[in-house]
């Protein structure tokens, strides 16, 4: 496994004081918290930062880590391996208290300090007398393409499910599920998979898995709740004279009547053509008057004639010029 440079991860010098380590951690924890950050790799970074802090905040662990770092316990392939007789004095195994979510510490961490996790969560809540505890719910997100949300789909999701082993230690396991998503799920909507959360303890019920739907950006449509927006280009003459034009929807092409005298930004509503449901959303067409890149000599002559005939029209009257 890779040797992790915890100092680099926290962005502090090896001589950094305990205070500096704490400051750096707090700042990065806020920055990369998966519920806060919009960065792609926030979750990975957040776990790394938590792990680095777990080691560097504790003088004993930090000393051990520094020792290993100096010794450079690398094997011939350049990968890290702790010395054969290595044993951490911090005894992380024994359920040592930790503020961070120790379920996600890396193999590198565990090879030095032992397996993370502690039973304190179970104890803290006073369930230990009954030995029966409903499994925790698990909340996760599921990202769909708009087409998938519109038509419904079958999708594979990976979730981390907490698991309590026979010693009462909280671990986690990665679980892969095939989920059938019904048609018409909008962003922010939730679905529930009964019994797919953490396992119950002592014969109690399993927790549920909740998935919140997120939609990936679409090149043509945008979504607001259950409504789908489409920008539809029309020519100046279609807008001026009115026309029947073809527009795409997620359920196929439709004919749309552009009213006479339409202008850019004008909205047309196609009832029930948004995301399916009860009630279904609408598709909202935003018209956009578009010009050809160049005109023929004939067309230019016609424009000149038009300019003459429409002399009184000042498109900039609202600007006071």
């Amino acid at each position, binding site marked *: 496994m890779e040797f992790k440079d915890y100092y680099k991860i926290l962005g502090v010098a090896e001589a950094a004081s305990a205070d500096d380590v704490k400051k750096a951690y707090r700042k990065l924890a806020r920055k990369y918290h998966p*519920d806060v950050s919009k960065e792609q790799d926030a979750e990975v970074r957040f776990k790394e930062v938590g792990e680095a802090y777990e080691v560097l905040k504790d003088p004993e662990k930090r000393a051990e880590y520094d020792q290993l770092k100096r010794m450079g316990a690398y094997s011939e392939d350049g990968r890290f391996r702790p010395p054969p007789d290595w044993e951490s004095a911090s005894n992380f195994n024994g359920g040592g208290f930790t503020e961070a*979510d120790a379920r996600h510490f890396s193999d590198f961490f565990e090879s030095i300090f032992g397996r993370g996790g502690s039973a304190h969560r179970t104890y803290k809540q006073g369930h230990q007398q009954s030995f029966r505890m409903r499994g925790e*719910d698990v*909340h996760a997100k599921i990202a769909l393409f708009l087409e998938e949300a519109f038509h419904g789909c079958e999708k594979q999701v990976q979730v981390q499910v907490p698991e309590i082993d026979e010693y009462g230690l909280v671990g986690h396991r*990665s679980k892969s599920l095939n989920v059938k*998503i019904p048609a018409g799920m909008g962003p922010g909507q939730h679905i529930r998979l009964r019994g797919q959360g953490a396992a119950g303890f002592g014969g109690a019920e399993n*927790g549920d898995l909740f998935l919140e739907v997120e939609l990936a950006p679409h090149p043509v449509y945008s979504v*607001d709740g259950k409504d789908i927006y489409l920008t539809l280009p029309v020519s100046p003459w279609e807008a001026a004279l009115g026309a029947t034009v073809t527009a795409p929807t997620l359920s196929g092409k439709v004919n749309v009547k552009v009213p006479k005298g339409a202008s850019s930004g004008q909205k047309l509503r196609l009832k029930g053509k948004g995301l399916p449901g009860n009630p279904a959303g609408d598709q909202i067409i935003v018209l956009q008057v578009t010009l050809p890149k160049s005109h023929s000599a004939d067309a230019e002559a016609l424009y000149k004639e038009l300019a003459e005939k429409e002399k009184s029209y000042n498109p900039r009257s609202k600007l006071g010029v």
Partner: protein
Amino acid sequence: MTRKTIISTVEVLGQSDTYTLRELCERGGVNAEFIIELVSYGVIAPVEERPAHQWQFDTLALARLSRAMRLQRDLQLNLPGLAMSLDLLDEVNELRREVARLNQQLSRLIAD
């Protein structure tokens, strides 16, 4: 360890899916006092104002509770800080979505 299962029963949750205080405690693995405190600080809110034993929470409150617990554990926020962070986060997410939508529409307008 990865295990694969075929799932056929998916429930779509709507406004009619609610949870009692007791269910919320069990699902979140927290005690009722903690939830009552969260409600008093406005971190989460029941669907209707009522005495605590009649409270009903919707799925959004449940999701918010799980976020609140993660934030409290990871960033050691106190309750007023938690309430404010969650409100601001909701607003930020709303704005991010809106900006993304507008940017997309704008890029189409100036694309040609």
